[in-house]
């Protein structure tokens, strides 16, 4: 279980204090709703380690993640954009999730092929990321999630701007990946339909405090 307990953060140029407490079971998707600037993405930045909390804790089972550096945290993040290096091929972008040298290890390459067929992009293995549509790029980023197999998946409005059909496909894919891999998935969104479709529970930012609905 992922536990976020009394996590507090204060931006240096603003008096607002953001407070977060939540818990997520393995295989569960929790959605965070709120207006732009309400502090939803700040929570993801705190869990990912991009920001340091002034107090509180983040624990995955018995493991305290609060003071770990970004690279040591067992998680994968999908952003709204810039999830891929556009000049690299789809295969290389996915391999970057596990191999930083990008030497083509046959085992990893076969794994990438398998994962690409799972997300329906097997034909695009050697295409440059820049040639893919927005939806396809996000699917490649999801494929990298599968490659990394980290227990926490953070989604920072990754499907904003996609058409309805693609969006639904992506949401279903997230649900499938979460269940099959027992991930702890946190999805920040401002679309209530996204929550209704895949979230097990919904939290909302109210006056800078995270509250379960």
């Amino acid at each position, binding site marked *: 279980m992922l536990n976020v307990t009394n996590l507090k953060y204060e931006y240096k140029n603003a008096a607002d204090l953001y407070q977060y407490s939540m818990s997520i079971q393995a295989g569960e998707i929790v959605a965070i709703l709120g207006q732009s600037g309400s502090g939803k993405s700040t929570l993801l930045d705190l869990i990912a380690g991009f920001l340091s909390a002034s107090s509180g804790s983040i624990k995955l089972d018995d493991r305290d993640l609060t003071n770990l550096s*970004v*690279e040591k945290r067992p998680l994968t993040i999908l952003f709204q954009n*810039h999830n891929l*290096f*556009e000049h690299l091929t789809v295969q290389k972008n996915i391999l970057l999730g596990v191999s930083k040298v990008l030497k083509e290890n046959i085992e990893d390459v076969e794994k990438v092929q398998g994962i690409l067929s799972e997300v329906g992009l097997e034909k695009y293995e050697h295409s440059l990321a*820049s040639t893919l549509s927005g939806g396809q790029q996000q699917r490649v980023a999801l494929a990298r999630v599968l490659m990394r197999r980290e227990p926490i998946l953070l989604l920072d409005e990754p499907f904003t701007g996609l058409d309805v059909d693609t969006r639904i496909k992506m949401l279903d894919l997230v649900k499938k990946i979460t269940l099959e891999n027992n991930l702890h998935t946190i999805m920040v969104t401002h679309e209530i339909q996204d929550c209704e479709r895949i979230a097990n529970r919904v939290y909302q930012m109210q006056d800078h405090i995270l509250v379960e609905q």
Partner: protein
Amino acid sequence: MPLLAIIVDGIGADFSHIFSEALFIKSFLTSIGLATVSSILTVIIAILLSDARRNFTVKHRLSEHKMAKVFSIILAFSGNLYLAIPSLIMGLGFFLLSQRYEASLVLWSIIALLTANVLMSLPFALSVLSPAMQKTAQRYDKLIFSLNLTKLQRWIYCEYPYLKSSLGYVFALAFCFSLGDLGIIALFGSDDFSTLPWYLYQLMGSYRTEDGAGVALILLAIVLAVFTLLPKLFGGTDAKRN
């Protein structure tokens, strides 16, 4: 018009005579050598300063370092310092140092020229690279951190592909600045140590205007070739950003 005058007069110069002069060959090789080393140093220092500045900007944003903003400003200022100092004054400083600390004058000349060339090119190099690196950081920092890429991997997979034409431009700019500078060499130049601008100055001083136009045309041709070819050698256009 001045360039046209150089082209018209330069074409008529006796190039076989110019190329047969030992001092021309020596000046040419010295200029190319100094310009190459200066450009390499400028690119490396500009990358390091831009990277340090970007790191301080990130630390300031994350409130990790209270002095980060101050360091960032100091770095930006230090890169532009040379704009406020005439090269002749810096040259005189090096000349005085060479009088005080005995070493070969050629060695002092090389140190002075390299320092001045790098400092002269640095503000322009920083104005090109720093915003480009900040932009790359804004877009990809989170992805890079989450993928746990090292500095070298970051450079190979992210920075270089997006910056290569800018690097080529900076290299070409530094090369051309260095090639044409007459500030420091005016004090240090001699028959033992000369560059093309100093050689050109000597030709004009001895009323060899036709040869001077020929040398100026050679300088112009090198500068044009460098500006056209170097960015392409670095890999053409930057990788596409969506």
